[in-house]
Each structure stands twice: as C-alpha cells, then as structure tokens.
C-alpha cells in the first residue's frame, strides 16, 4: 500500500493563507470492542474519545478536512515512523513518503469526530474566583508535520503566559481548567458524522 502523497508537505506548498472559518477539523480516536463512541443519554461524544491521555489537551492534534479525508484516519505511524515523521516542518519540506509496514500501518479500529473551526478559533473561557481571574482563548494553528501537511493544532493562550513557564502547582491548576474548556467546547460542538464541508482551493496552500 502506497502512502497518500496528497497529504505530505512538498516543495510547492506554503502556509495556508486563506480564512478557515467555514472549514472543519477532524480527529481520530480508537474504539475498542464493546466501547461506545457516543453517550446514549446526551448524544455527545464520550469525553475519553475527545482526548486521551490528558497531557495532550493543551495542544490537541487534528487535521483539516478536505484533501485530508476519512480515508486517511486509519494511517498509523509505527515507532520507526514516529521517529522519522512525527516532527513539525516547513510546508515546502520535501519528504520521502513513509513505507507501509515500516513507517506506517492501517488501524481499522480508528473512528473520528469533526468540528467546525469557527466553533473553536478565538473562543474564550473566563474563570474567576474571589479576586483571582483567569482567561484562556482557543487558537487553531496550521502546524504541518512531516507525515501530514494538513496537520493543525488546537492550543490555548492564557493571560498568565505559556504553561511551560509556570511553576508546577500553577501549571497543574491551569491545565485542569484548560482540560475542562477543551472537553466542554468539543463535547458541545463535535459530531461523529462527516459534515457538508468545503475543500480548500489550491491557491490557499500551493504556489503553483
């Protein structure tokens, strides 16, 4: 099986420079036999399928739905593939395609959810307690990786600065609040169905 080269960075590609409010992000999750993807009471995606482990919640990986489709959800990097390809890169980096069974395999147990970028980008959470205030704003960034040009990251800007610069106690407390924010916004807006979605025009991501 050949790796789908349409999702790789390549010499003619550039940082996506068009507004993305009408577009959708897609993220995979793994569903074991007997597990449910959706809470039957609420119809919402189960929290454990939003992000696990919890350390990923402050920088959640997703892909732009369009050229990257549900056919690419099953691509799973091996450890060797992760070492070679699981790195951020420039959009025009020339990358040799990953090799089947060496760098990647197919995981048929993977499922997905989708969410509109407009539901995430710029949305803020403001928590106050006594005289202590804290706010976080959700930002969607194009962050190409060597295995996936369409890789995006969901990150949080806080009024207290970057998480990694906080002392451990403060970092844990803020991470807890970011975890709640991510769970809430994704639980409310994400769906396991493929939405009607546009495909990004070539001029938005290619110099050709």
């Amino acid at each position, binding site marked *: 099986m050949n790796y789908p080269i349409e999702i790789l960075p390549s010499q003619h590609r550039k940082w996506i420079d068009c507004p993305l409010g009408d577009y959708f992000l897609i993220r995979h999750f793994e569903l074991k036999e007997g597990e449910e993807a959706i809470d039957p009471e609420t119809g919402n995606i189960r929290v454990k399928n939003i992000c696990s482990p919890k350390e990923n919640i402050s920088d959640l990986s997703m892909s732009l739905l369009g050229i990257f489709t549900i056919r690419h959800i099953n691509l799973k990097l091996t450890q060797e593939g992760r070492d070679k390809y699981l790195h951020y890169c420039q959009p025009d980096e020339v990358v040799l395609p990953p090799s089947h069974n060496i760098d990647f395999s197919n995981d048929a147990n993977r499922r997905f959810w989708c969410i*509109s970028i407009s539901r995430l980008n710029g949305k803020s959470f403001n928590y106050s307690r006594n005289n202590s205030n804290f706010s976080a704003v959700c930002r969607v960034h194009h962050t190409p990786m060597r295995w996936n040009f369409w890789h995006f990251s969901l990150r949080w800007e806080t009024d207290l600065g970057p998480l990694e610069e906080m002392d451990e106690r403060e970092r844990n407390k803020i991470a807890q609040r970011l*975890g709640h924010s991510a*769970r809430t916004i994704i639980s409310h807006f994400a769906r396991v169905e493929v939405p009607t979605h546009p495909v990004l025009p070539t001029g938005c991501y290619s110099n050709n």
Partner: protein
Amino acid sequence: MAKIRKNTGDSDLIESHLLRVGSAYAEPYATGGSFEATNRRFAFADQKAKESGWSHTPIEEINRRFIKLDRSFISQLSQENNVFSGHPEYILREKMKISAELLLSCEPDVISLEVTNEGSIFYTWRKNDISIYLDHYLIEEHDGKDEAIVSIYKNNDKVADFAGSLDEVIVQINNSLVSESIDFPAFA
C-alpha cells in the same frame, strides 16, 4: 446536528463508521432510507414507552435517575483504577452523591456523567435550550475541597464559565439562569 455529507465516494466508509460509533444517522446509510424515516421510528419508540404505563412521582424519578448515575459512576470508577488509586470508593461516592443530587434537583431533560482521567466527574446537564457542563474534581484539588468548574450554554451561545467550590459554582449558575427559571437548591 451537522448536515451529513452524502453521495460521495466515501459512503462505504461513512456507513461503517456511523454503524460502529452508534450514530443515529447510521440507519439511513445502511438501508438507503431517509433521515425523516429514522425520526419517525424514534418518535414511535417514544410513544410506545409512554403508553407502557410507567409513571413516577418527582421524588421517585429523581431516585431512579440517581441510581442510574450511581451505577454508571461505579462502573467507570472500576475502569479508572490508576487515576483513583489510594482514594477509598465510599468517599468518592459520597462526593458524587452531592453533585449528582444537586444537578438532579432541577429535573433536567438529560443528565449524564463521565469519569475523566483528570480525576473529575464531567456532568452533561440539559434542560430546554440550556446546557451545563460541570467538572466536579474528586482528587487533585488545587483550590480547596469540592472544586468544580462549570460552563453554561444557551443553544450554541456561551452564557458563562465559573471555577470555585461546588457551592460557589451552584450560586453562580443560579445567578446566570435567573431569567431561565432554573434554580438549584443552595447548600445548607
């Protein structure tokens, strides 16, 4: 609910995915039927349930729903042993009881809980067009006992977020939902 993309080359994948994840939209794909037909089947099932003669007083209804939440909580606790190791189950259940009873007291249309790998209970609560998402932290409390964080939506618009103790959060929810005639009981 988002519109479903239909008639694409991916329809086989979409169908198998929707069936596996238990989406309500799976059946139209599987049978070639319509969404309207699925909705009619759901409405028929609801009607049959109503005709079956079950009725509860409000207290019985709250108890029935609490038992369901309690069973769900215990079942999920056993799957998150690594997160709650060293924390006696009876204490965790007592904490759950406080938040669950509070949230049930307003007779929500929908309520559900999920134990998270951050050591919290994540409640989803819905009544009319109001959705409340409340994390009640059972361990790793950074700001004191019974720490909670809540976000409130009206349809798809955010109304408010709060962090604090469970009782502080409930007071804030009440303040935010005065106009919605939703009022949780205050702590004694």
